[in-house]
């Protein structure tokens, strides 16, 4: 096992992030393997040294300064209260309809009768998009549209995985 991998396992052990079986394995290695014991002692020293450092403090007037500043301010209304959800949904709907419109137009030009020369791949080549995509601005707009869609999808999936992780850790 290389040093990096050993360090990683020892840090996990020191941080209390090893599962019970991994913990037992590391403890066993520390008892029997000199290299492991020596590395453990090195890392333990760093670990304890960082933990022993003190927090720094600001000036004694700090709280008073903050409170004086705050006295001149007001709490801003919650973002969720002044962003109208209907507007957000409306914008989203506009983009979805736009993409759907292009899809329907494309599919509408396909020959659905079947038989020779009407396979999906061949039909796809017949779709005339030049009427729409002949302009640089339209191309750029559609590209931005697609990127925004991917960003939103990524955001949505990350949110879902975050919720899933919280549920499993509870």
């Amino acid at each position, binding site marked *: 096992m290389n040093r990096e991998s050993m360090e990683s396992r020892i840090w996990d052990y020191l941080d209390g992030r090893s599962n019970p079986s991994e913990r037992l394995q590391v403890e066993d290695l520390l008892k029997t393997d000199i290299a492991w014991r020596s590395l453990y002692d090195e890392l333990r020293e760093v670990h304890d*040294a960082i933990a*022993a450092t003190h927090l*720094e403090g600001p000036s004694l007037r700090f709280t008073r300064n*903050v409170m004086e500043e705050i006295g001149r301010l007001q709490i801003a209304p919650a973002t969720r209260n002044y962003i109208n959800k209907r507007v957000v949904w409306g914008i989203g709907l506009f983009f979805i309809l736009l993409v759907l419109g292009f899809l329907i137009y494309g599919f509408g030009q396909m020959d659905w009768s079947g038989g020779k020369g009407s396979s999906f791949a061949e039909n796809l080549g017949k779709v005339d998009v030049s009427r729409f995509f002949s302009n640089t601005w339209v191309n750029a707009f559609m590209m931005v549209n697609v990127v925004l869609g991917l960003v939103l999808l990524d955001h949505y999936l990350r949110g879902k995985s975050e919720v899933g992780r919280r549920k499993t850790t509870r």
Partner: protein
Amino acid sequence: MLTGLDDNHIIQKVLGGDTQSYATLVDRYQNYVFTLALRMVKNREDAEEVAQDVFIKAFRALADFRGNSKFSTWLYTIVNNTSITYLRKKRLQTHSLEQESVFAQVDARESTLSANQVEQKSRVAAVSRAIGLLSPDDAEVLTLFYKAEQSLEEIGSILGIEPNAAKVRLHRARGRLKEKLETHFAEEIKNLN
């Protein structure tokens, strides 16, 4: 006295109009916020300015705190963003801090701190100074984990990265701190062993 109340309770009081209750939160977190800011901007005056800015921003945005995370995690996210903005403004981007010239600046600052001979002898002070020599990213992740008691999941949320990436960053930061201790503070560490 509000010192015994939990953060969410105090926040509800502040949102309900009792602005003065906010002082309890400032007292409770000022050292954490200041230390984090100091680790990033590397200068006490700047750190105080950043810390003050953080508490003012947090107050203004308090209605947006939904309680999904700990108040401290939310607050440290503001510290992270404010410090990065501050560093950008001062043209001291986090990456450029790894450059030799900036280390020279940090070293120069450290040498002015060395007047206190007693502190210089102390192992704790040596470690603090070694942390001061790290890049803001490394110093921040160490402070969040060891001093601000944030889990890797929470650190990930503060820094906008996955918990695994936070874990890797923490491991690397500890490795680089070890190097700094061995390179710059070998004597202090040895003497105290």
